[in-house]
């Protein structure tokens, strides 16, 4: 058993408020991983101790709690955040206090901090492959796209990237519809009927949904009520996972799509044992697993590796040791930490089944490396992030050969 002064890690996920619905699970995963790690002998022979706080879905409170974790609890690393705004809110704190944040959720990219490891998907690891699939014969060969999302930065950016990408694939402006709704939109009648009308132009139409969290349930219910099925107008979602489906009656949704880097249904020994541990830990054989959980798992194990490698929890040492580390994914293949603090990930497209699980119908041949900056956005097409020597910069302009703006870290 591990001995000595415990190593503390912070868990910064909302346990109340609007985001509790998604984030509580990630807190549980980290607690489970801590327990498993301690059973395996801890880290550096010392036990791990999780410091859990509740930032309550309140963005400034995220910053406050981040500061508490780093300055008061002196944690070795923090696992946390879901929404982009919460990440943006804590970013200055992590940079000021030189902390380490593992961010486990798919996001819009266009960011690259030395103090953050992005273990969720960047747009090129989710959105682009998903659209590729819809364009392909297998995916129905869509010629017309409705990009609908919640009005915040992740959908905005993702859709901006997708619009440029679709145009580069020969889709006309008139065949792209973009629509934003507020958080928690619950009345989708008008928008769904607009989708229907949009889909009646005689071209195969697909929807790309970046609708966030809670708003998905009423959206899919309305799709069902108005009789739109996956074979009419498939909906490809980036924020609907097993957890969300657990709260829905999925029968009318069969065949609708989601793009992720992990599905619970993927049959691999590692995944099986992870699911088993999870059911044991939560004492609930029905608790689902999902993509951000895997991303948390990867991040946690990468951190453990880095600490073991440098024999210390010193932040700078750990950060520098991270790049190049590898961790096996739960679904096969490996996640490798890239110089831009993103990782390589496989991309899967799944169809919703009536049991609330996804049936993988397509996957990338190999892992896709995460790109911090989108090549499809004019302002960032020349940017890269590289936290290794000699560049050591999160926003390096490869044309000007210069690090832009304030150097992070």
């Amino acid at each position, binding site marked *: 058993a591990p001995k000595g002064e415990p190593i503390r890690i912070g868990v910064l996920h909302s346990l109340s408020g609007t985001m509790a619905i998604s984030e509580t699970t990630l807190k549980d995963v980290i607690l489970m991983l801590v327990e498993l790690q301690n059973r395996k002998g801890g880290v550096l022979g010392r036990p791990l101790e999780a410091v859990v706080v509740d930032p309550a879905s309140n963005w400034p409170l995220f910053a406050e709690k981040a500061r508490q974790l780093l300055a008061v609890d002196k944690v070795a690393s923090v696992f946390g955040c879901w929404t982009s705004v919460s990440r943006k809110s804590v970013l200055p704190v992590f940079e000021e206090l030189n902390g380490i944040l593992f961010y486990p959720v798919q996001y819009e990219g266009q960011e690259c901090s030395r103090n953050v490891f992005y273990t969720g998907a960047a747009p090129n690891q989710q959105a682009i492959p998903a659209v590729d699939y819809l364009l392909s014969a*297998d995916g129905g*060969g869509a010629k017309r796209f409705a990009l609908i999302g919640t009005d915040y930065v992740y959908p905005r950016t993702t859709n901006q990237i997708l619009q440029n990408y679709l145009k580069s694939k020969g889709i006309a402006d008139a065949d792209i519809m973009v629509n934003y709704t507020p958080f928690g939109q619950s009345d989708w009648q008008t928008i769904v*009927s607009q989708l229907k009308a949009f889909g*009646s132009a*005689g071209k195969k139409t697909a929807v790309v949904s970046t609708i966030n969290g809670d708003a998905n349930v009423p959206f899919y219910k309305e799709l069902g009520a108005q*009789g739109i099925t996956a074979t009419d107008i498939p909906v490809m979602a980036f924020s609907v996972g097993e957890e969300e489906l657990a*709260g829905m*009656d999925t029968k009318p949704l069969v065949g609708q799509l989601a793009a992720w880097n992990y599905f619970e249904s993927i049959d691999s020994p590692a995944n099986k044992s992870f699911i088993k541990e999870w059911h044991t830990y939560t004492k609930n054989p029905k608790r689902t697993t999902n993509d951000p959980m895997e991303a948390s798992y990867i991040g946690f194990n990468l951190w453990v590796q880095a600490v073991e490698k440098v024999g210390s929890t010193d932040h700078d040492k750990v950060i520098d040791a991270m790049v190049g580390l590898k961790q096996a994914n739960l679904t096969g293949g490996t996640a490798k930490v890239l110089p831009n603090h993103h990782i390589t990930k496989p991309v899967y497209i799944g169809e919703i089944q009536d049991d609330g699980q996804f049936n993988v119908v397509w996957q990338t041949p190999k892992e896709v490396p995460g790109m911090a900056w989108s090549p499809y956005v004019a302002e960032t097409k020349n940017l890269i992030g590289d936290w290794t020597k000699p560049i050591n910069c999160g926003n390096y302009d490869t044309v000007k050969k210069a690090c832009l703006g304030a150097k992070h870290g």
Partner: protein
Amino acid sequence: MADVAMSGPAALSGRKLWNGARGIFAAVLLSLLFIQPDSARADEDAFAGLATTQFNTIASSVDQIAQQGGPRALPVLRALADKKLFAASEGDALFIRKGDSWEDARSGVPATPDETTLRPVRVNNRVRLAVAAAEAELELVSGTPAERQASATVFYQRHDPAMLPAIDKALSKTDDATLKDTLLNARAAALLSPGAPASDAQAQQQAVAKLRAAGGLDARGILAQASTEETLDPATRKAAEEAVSSIDFELRLWGFGQDAFYGMSLGSVLLLAAMGLAITFGVMGVINMAHGELMMIGAYTTWLTQKAVLSVAPALGSFSLVLAIPAAFLVCGALGIVIERGLIRFLYGRPLETLLATWGLSLILQQVIRSLFGPTNVAVTTPPWLSGSFHLGGIEVTIDRLAIMIFAVVVMAGLTLVLRRTPLGLQMRAVTQNRRMAALMGIRTARVDALTFGLGSGIAGLAGVAVSQIDNVSPNLGQSYIIDSFLVVVFGGVGNLWGTLAAAATLGIGGKALEPLVGAVSGKILLLVLVILYIQRHPRGMFPLRGRGVES
């Protein structure tokens, strides 16, 4: 003109299929690339492809099965669609699961395969499309009248020129007018579709006219496509274009009706959410911030009822919603009484402090539910009899929304009756207007207070049942309704149920009228600003209580 109105569960299940097959043509065309229409293969085992793991092969196999026909075609395809078709992991044996027993797919004779070696045949959207198309093809000749009608619609929607012979054959065999009409539409659609056999300009234009007459989104889609179809006669393309714009015009007109329906449906949700508050806040003056949480608990009660019914009497599962209505009313009503006795009663005369106390209560209720049932959504299913939609002219009426509208009206009527026509209603109003005098008149004010709060809470529970059908059921549910509920009650005029009704309808219809014009977010902002300006002109809402008694 648009579709004929239809109703009833049979029609519903049918139309699911039609819609399901709407985009079929694309996939079928694609699958044609993979099928070698080689007659030599016709007597090969069409079923073998199903036993593979390749979606492409499975889909082409489905098409082949349909083309070959035969007595086993339909049962196998249906089993595939129902995920009851299994393949052996070795070889190409196929079995259909019949409850606990099995039959061989190809022959239909009972079989006893080794279950551990079986895996379900994989299905994806492409396979689903192929199955729907194949089923339609098979049922058009052999199905029941309803199935035939459904199949004809599928044909219309997929408008695949390859199906023209089948359509003609079916046309020659039927004298059912409706079926004939659908088939004629299908024929016209197929004629105008890519890959159609060359036809003369006159026939094409007749087809355009036929589709123009059919109207609706399907016809619009086909005509829009035809208008860009190079192989068609230029005059046909022009006619198709004109037909599209005239259908568009028609659709826009219907759009007003459709928006009105959406608006009333949104309004009825608002009304339900606000009605309980119209009692606890409007009548009693309690600024009840926990109102949303009572709705949330009503929704959870629905979920629990559903679970309970499914575990006790699964056969009644689809009627659990009916049971949930009294259950939610009683649970929330009782909770309301507990809240009134434990908290609110100490605060009469200090209405603003009820805000503080009930806010605290709402935090606790949210967290209680989170602790009990977890932070995530729970799945409340919509029973089949509430699913789907039907057409009223060009207006699509979704059944769950319609049910909510009716429910809201019924609750409203009931509440009005209770308040206006029963002794309890009179006592409620008396107590809330002048508690001390009411006591002097022998009214048990404590009891009436508890009952009034319980009634308002019970109605919040009913609202919870309704929203569980269209929205998330999670501990956060209440938060998304509380602001709108207060807005409705106040906008309508506090203490006036008719005002609440008018405000809910106005906000619902107004919101839905603005949404297509300026978008959901700006529409909402605009509506809020309009409400603010309206209140400036009518400082006591739409239906103010007038007179001396109010002003002094």
